[in-house]
């Protein structure tokens, strides 16, 4: 018989989400709920293996909605039912993905394109139409950012992977909304108002669960990554690049691309549109090759007047183009061989030195490469994607795993910021390694809440100084499997 102090139960739902059965599971020994930024979550409950209601009513692909006194904690799809024969107390561990796992059941099909389409239309559609990424899934809009237009093409991704890809390439995030089957899509990163701290003495007032103040027993170093990128050369589908971007304020730069440096030269006379051939520094014209692309601009910066043209002929002091110059150029303008476009963060370079990387964005490319507008839209999208990557990778990634956190507010969500104040030793590889004194804001990357049979509720929280998922996490599996399937490795 249960008492009025009971902490949690689990309603049994059919695959459509309707409650079934005579009542909830109430003989639950423990609950573990994990929510992670840009990933599907995981939920597990442990019950006695002999619980008749479990035996009669719980089966794979049914759903369980775990409720605690403070409200619904999580709903998950029963995927695994593992008997654990632990001595005298045989138990059953029932686990599976949270409802984001439903978005694995539908795919994008082949050749799904969103060409210069408003983000909200692409994600939700006006009425969750079948053409949107949530169309037909039963999911609706939670909070979806008013981002503007996007251009992206999908080929046989699950809806979840498609959403994660889209968010990642815009520098945005996804998570389950505050109500079931709703999706949040956006920058996130707002302050939760929550402070996580280690304390000198547990006081009665703290025991009475002061809102927004959580207590951490131990901090552990998660990831300290030197994997910094502060110059990134992006390529879209079929080596599509940013040359046709239209954003005048874009931080796009260009450099010669052949060989270690590529051939470069300077224009030696002012020329108008249509000039052909173009005069270049004496003796340098033959450094170029017939048929290759060159970039001509005031400097090696994309924002100034520039063009990309094809070399038709070369001479010692001039280069002939297939169609002449498109715009006017002045003495001293750069001519670069086989231009490569990139973005960089000079502040990061000042701190860490130049860390260059190339990045492939397979989902971005012009829907019709012969149409300038399509190329421009795709180039702008590619710029957005690489800029997002630069923002997330231009500084050293530090994450901490805060374990045995108590009194963590129920409304704290991944993607939000918390203030961490921690003075004490931190653990790495299971040992106390050094003393740290942190008083800073961090992004919440992952939350695992554990409810024990005693009524004790603890959590572990992964926080990071950069808003991106922690690598090397088992919860990547769903997404990674999906990606592997797409590239044909499985």
């Amino acid at each position, binding site marked *: 018989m249960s008492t009025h102090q009971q902490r949690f139960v689990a309603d049994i739902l059919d695959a459509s989400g309707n409650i079934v059965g005579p009542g909830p599971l109430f003989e639950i020994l423990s609950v573990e709920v994990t929510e992670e930024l840009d990933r599907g979550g995981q939920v597990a409950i442990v019950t006695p293996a002999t619980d008749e209601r479990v035996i009669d009513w719980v089966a794979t692909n049914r759903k369980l909605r775990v409720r605690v006194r403070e409200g619904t904690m999580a709903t998950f799809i029963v995927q695994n039912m593992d008997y654990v024969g632990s001595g005298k107390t045989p138990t059953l561990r029932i686990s599976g993905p949270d409802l984001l796992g439903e978005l694995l059941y539908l795919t994008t099909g082949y050749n799904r394109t969103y060409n210069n389409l408003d983000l909200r239309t692409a994600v939700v559609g006006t009425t969750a139409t079948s053409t949107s990424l949530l169309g037909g899934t039963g999911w609706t809009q939670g909070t979806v950012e008013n981002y503007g237009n996007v251009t992206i093409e999908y080929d046989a991704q699950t809806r979840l992977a498609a959403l994660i890809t889209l968010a990642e390439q815009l520098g945005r995030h996804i998570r389950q909304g505050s109500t079931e089957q709703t999706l949040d899509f956006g920058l996130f990163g707002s302050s939760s108002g929550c402070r996580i701290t280690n*304390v000198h003495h547990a006081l009665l007032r703290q025991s009475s669960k002061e809102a927004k103040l959580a207590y951490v027993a131990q901090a552990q170093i998660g990831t300290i990554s030197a994997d910094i990128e502060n110059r990134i050369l992006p390529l879209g589908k079929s080596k599509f690049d940013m040359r046709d971007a239209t954003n005048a304020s874009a931080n796009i730069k260009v450099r010669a691309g052949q060989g270690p440096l590529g051939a470069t030269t300077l224009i030696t006379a002012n020329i108008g549109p249509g000039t052909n051939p173009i005069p270049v520094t004496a003796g340098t014209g033959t450094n170029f090759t017939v048929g290759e692309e060159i970039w001509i601009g005031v400097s090696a910066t994309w924002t100034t007047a520039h063009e990309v043209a094809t070399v038709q002929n070369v001479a010692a002091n001039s280069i002939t183009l297939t169609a002449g110059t498109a715009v006017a150029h002045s003495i001293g303008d750069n001519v670069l061989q086989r231009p490569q476009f990139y973005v960089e963060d000079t502040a990061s370079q000042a701190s860490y030195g130049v860390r260059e990387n190339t990045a492939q964005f397979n989902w971005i490319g012009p829907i019709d490469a012969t149409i300038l507008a399509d190329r421009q839209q795709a180039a702008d999208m590619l710029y957005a994607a690489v800029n997002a990557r630069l923002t997330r990778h231009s500084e050293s990634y530090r994450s901490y795993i805060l374990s045995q956190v108590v009194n963590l507010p129920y409304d704290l969500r991944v993607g939000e910021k918390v203030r961490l104040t921690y003075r004490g030793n931190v653990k790495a590889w299971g040992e106390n390694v050094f003393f740290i004194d942190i008083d800073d804001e961090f992004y919440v990357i992952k939350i695992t809440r554990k409810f024990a049979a005693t009524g004790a509720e603890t959590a572990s929280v992964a926080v990071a100084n950069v808003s991106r998922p922690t690598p090397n996490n088992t919860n990547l599996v769903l997404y990674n499997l999906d990606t592997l399937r797409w590239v044909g490795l499985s």
Partner: protein
Amino acid sequence: MIIARYGATWVSSYTFGTYQAADNWQAQLLPVTQQVGGAGGVFDFFGDEQYPPAPLSVTKAFTVRGSDYNDVDDEIDAARAWTLGYPSSYEPKLFAHNRGDGATAATRIYTPAKCIAFKANEMTGKYLTQRVEIKFYCPDGLWYGETEQLYDHTFSSGANTFTLTNAGNYPALVNVWITPYTTNMTSCKVENLTYGGGANPEWTFTGTVLPSVTLRVNACTYHCANGFVEAYADLTLGTGQIPWLWLWPGNNSIRVTANPTSYRVYAYWNDTYLK
């Protein structure tokens, strides 16, 4: 309080000996706390609420007397058969009563129990007596009135408030059955209006109950049925409420609001004690 018998029912149970009898057990509440970051003191997960009751470990000891060796051995064998050898499928219980109350059904209490040890060691020099020590494990940690409390009333109009009494000292889960008479019942809400700390428990049934069909909302077993059809999907609980309905110790004012207003209410519970 005297722990007097062990068995499925008072009538069909083993009566412990009373000669040199001694009961040894201790009611406990389980602290749920955790040290935080090497700090002094602990974090209390239950805040300003009381901790949940711990299971009971009960030791019953008494001395068996007989007219000869065989008589004593027979007594001990009988005690062992009724306790350690008791078929578990009979849901055995320990029965107790206050010393001043006598053993009337109305005042007896029980707790589900299982015998886990039986000790009757032979001692040199003790010919006609033998000390017996029997251990029981009681998983609930609570005691319940042996007599089930009932409330059975037929209403014909309006929202109806009535009093249910939990004579114990601990909240008691209460089962409520409602049967409409002549027309379909399309809504039904049952609330405990008596404040006992925190939000008052309530449930609302939103399904349709046909005339003469009984809606059973059994809080003790978390079982809801509309007639013989499982109907938990139509049951809504108060915000943040986990158990379905309970009675605080003492008098509880219960209100039923239903459409139609003509129905029979049948409620039953066991007074619940922390002893």
